[in-house]
């Protein structure tokens, strides 16, 4: 039994990388705007469908299709924030959450209208293969997804920690009024970060389209897994989103193998419930829960 442990950790990490990417894309938009995007799962699904349309529909090479899909989602996220969220940004939190939800619902409806009756097979524009390291099997999927996520992580880490933009992000997250006072164009910045979050989500969607069949309801599952990873790592923490995602992937494989396979399906539901009850700040987040 224990001999399989390294294998489970490796394949769990591979799935977890995907969760990490989705949680990270949600965290970026949340950090900038302090609005949780309940429509984000559908943005990810839209990204997956976009790469399918550009790649198979228009017959473009995969990398170009991917670039176009990311650009499309960036524009959509930017426009959604500018046109729909900015007008009500001063309103109650409830309206903002509902607006995000409604946007996602609209996207899902559009996807179902076009592709409701078909299941689209995974794209896999590279040969499928498996490599043996000792007694651990690593598939091409693991390598491609792991590699892409690691690259993105490095780029984002640099962006947030080293560049001036990172400081702007941090400043706006801490105090929007203060950021505005020192000359940061907060609304434009919010729109940019929503675009950025949607673009990152699109990359997650592209990764998903490589390995899973696409259905219009893909966004539901994505949203829950992303939330689970975010709460596990701590809301708003970028490192936490990544650690939470990977930990979620490993946990679900370990529980699934050693206890019962049903845990593969429900870990994503149980984790946010348990974490928010027992340790609301997650592993790396700050405490931000109201008590009366």
């Amino acid at each position: 039994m224990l001999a399989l442990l390294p294998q489970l950790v490796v394949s769990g990490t591979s799935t977890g990388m995907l969760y990490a990417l989705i949680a990270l894309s949600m965290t970026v938009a949340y950090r900038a705007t302090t609005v949780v995007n309940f429509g984000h799962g559908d943005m990810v699904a839209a990204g997956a469908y976009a790469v399918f349309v550009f790649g198979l529909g228009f017959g473009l090479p995969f990398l170009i299709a991917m670039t176009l899909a990311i650009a499309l989602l960036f524009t959509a996220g930017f426009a959604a924030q500018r046109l729909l969220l900015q007008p009500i940004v001063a309103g109650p939190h409830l309206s903002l959450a509902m607006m995000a939800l409604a946007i996602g619902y609209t996207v899902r409806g559009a996807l179902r209208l076009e592709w409701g009756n078909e299941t689209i097979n995974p794209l896999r524009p590279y040969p499928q293969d498996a490599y043996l390291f000792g007694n651990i099997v690593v598939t091409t999927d693991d390598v491609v997804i792991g590699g892409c996520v690691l690259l993105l992580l490095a780029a984002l880490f640099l962006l947030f920690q080293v560049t001036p933009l990172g400081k702007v992000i941090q400043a706006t997250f801490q105090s929007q009024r203060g950021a505005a006072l020192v000359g940061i164009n907060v609304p434009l910045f919010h729109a940019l970060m929503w675009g950025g979050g949607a673009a990152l989500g699109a990359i997650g969607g592209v990764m998903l389209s490589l390995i899973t069949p696409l259905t219009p309801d893909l966004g539901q599952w994505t949203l829950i897994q992303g939330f689970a990873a975010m709460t596990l790592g701590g809301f708003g923490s970028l490192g936490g989103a990544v650690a939470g995602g990977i930990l979620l992937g490993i946990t679900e494989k370990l529980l699934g193998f050693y206890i019962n396979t049903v845990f593969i399906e429900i870990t994503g539901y149980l984790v946010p419930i348990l974490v928010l009850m027992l340790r609301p700040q997650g592993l790396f987040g700050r405490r931000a829960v109201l008590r009366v």
Partner: protein
Amino acid sequence: MKGRRAFWLLPLALLPVPLLLNPYQQYVLNTALLYVPVGIGFNLVVGNLGLLAFSNVAYFGLGAYTSGVLMVQIGLPWWLTVIPAALMGGAGGAIASIPALRGVRLFYLAIMTLAFGELMRWTYIRWESLTGGSMGMAVPTATLFGWALDTDRRRFYVFLALVVLIVAITDRLLRSRFGRAFLAIKDNEIAAAAMGIPTDRYIVLAFAWGGAVVGVGGAMLAISVGHLTPVSFDLTELIRQFAIIMVGGLASLAGAIVGAVIITAAPQVFISFPGFDELVFGLLIVLVILFLPRGLASLLARLHPAFVERYYRD
């Protein structure tokens, strides 16, 4: 407030309506009726209490499956399963209020309750011996004191009676000190607690009554559709219910009614295009939030003061 008594004319006016409808239209009207309690229960927590609890489909499913399972496994007549369905829905609501009592708020609460709803849906899929799994379960014909509710027209009168009862009780509840406490909690929870309002007790009560009412809606769904599947309680359904209160009007009984009718009737127009209803409702919610934050019910309130509800302040 005098004009309020005229509202009793609405159910009276509905009594002869089945004579004008064909069976399909009757089925749509029944569906609209069963979504009225669903909207009322959701609105109580999200609108009146102002808490982002997204587990409405959990209570809906609990009510529907409780009714269905009791009829199939024990052979109870439908009318005897309505109370258990309400109790199970209420229990679901009470469970969903636990994180709220522990101080979880905003989207944290939304995420937890969302996960709770999905966990329940997974339970219906997995507990195959009771629920029939993802293939679903057939619900036998309902009876009321031995009278078979085998047509949509017969079910209509039972549904109408239940809905009137639920609307009347909830209206009383909201206009009593309970409703005022909800309003105080929504406006400022800390201030409400400081004024001596036992906020925890009222939060549990709102969740439990909301859940119970939605559970009755579930019991109505069980016999109206005659076949229960877990898909009926997924996130897409949650957003449809959500559309009811957003489009109809937050914290408004009239809003839940108007929303239920629109969200049920509108998809029938484009039923042959799956996905189109989601597209339209999504856009509808967007437009309502942008231009009519209190929903369509606020248009009614502009028409006549009797429609002004005191459960909410801007």
